[in-house]
């Protein structure tokens, strides 16, 4: 019995760490994609860890990441801009911003009710922990999570990244 536990637990942890796990979504920041009706039960999503190490995400993907403001909190947001993209911000201290190297721009679908890049700026790719692929609970919400960019939020352009782009935006991190 003890032996079975000793060997079973690492197998389970490795599965969760390499394949994925199910997590509950809290809050209104991703409405209407997730938790469209707060009075009903919260949505549960499957977070895929399968290709996590490649950090190969596209605009429109829903990802879970460690909050840059609080390392104990995981947040779920949509990728709006990748490195080198020029995004038009909503209430950030600069109106237009070039996403620096190794970073990305995240937003919740519920514009104005989401603590996202418009609040804390571009985020390092390394903070992403998983990609949300589908809604698994409640049953009537079963289905894949579509990858799309909400209307009007497309990056203004995706010019190739200049070498010094990372340094140009340094002022952004210093508060």
């Amino acid at each position: 019995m003890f032996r079975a536990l000793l060997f079973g637990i690492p197998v389970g942890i490795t599965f969760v760490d390499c394949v994925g796990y199910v997590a509950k979504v809290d809050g209104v920041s991703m409405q209407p994609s997730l938790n469209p009706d707060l009075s009903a039960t919260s949505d549960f999503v499957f977070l895929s860890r399968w290709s996590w190490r490649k950090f190969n995400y596209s605009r429109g993907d829903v990802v879970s990441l460690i909050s840059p403001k609080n390392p104990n909190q995981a947040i779920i947001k949509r990728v709006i801009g990748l490195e080198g993209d020029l995004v038009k911000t909503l209430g950030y201290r600069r109106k237009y911003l070039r996403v620096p190297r190794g970073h990305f721009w995240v937003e919740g679908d519920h514009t104005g009710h989401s603590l996202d890049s418009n609040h804390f700026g571009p985020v390092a790719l390394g903070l992403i922990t998983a990609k949300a692929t589908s809604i698994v609970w409640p049953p009537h919400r079963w289905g894949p999570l579509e990858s799309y960019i909400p209307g009007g939020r497309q990056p203004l352009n995706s010019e190739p990244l200049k070498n010094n782009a990372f340094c140009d935006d340094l002022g952004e991190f210093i508060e």
Partner: protein
Amino acid sequence: MLGSVVRSAAALVQVGCLAHCTLEFCADFVVCEGPSMEPTICGSDILLAEHISVRSRIISKGSVVIVRSPSDPHSYICKRVIAGPGDRVPIVGSSSFVPKGHVWLEGDNKLNSTDSRAFGPVPFGLVRGRAVMKLWPPSDIGFV
């Protein structure tokens, strides 16, 4: 015959998973490159890095940490924690506070290190491990 094949495959999976958990959650080995941490750590030194204190958020000032590079998620950098959230740090021309959830990292080789002085404070979520011991070269074995 078939039974023994299945049994050894299962044993192999178990050992692999145990190794994965140890390297991912307890400690792993890191090869450092580049001059930024000289003289504490020189190029191609092998370090033992533990992950427990990172997961329990008890990284103190002065620790040498392994951090996912903010400019490239595929590479790691090795720096010393100089300041934590709320601390005042000097930057060119003025000084500034480290924001909540971030740490300020600097290399020991101040003249040849790309660190927080260049890319700003780093979110704690990027910290992966704390260097505890130097394992190689043999003449240098000891705690960091």
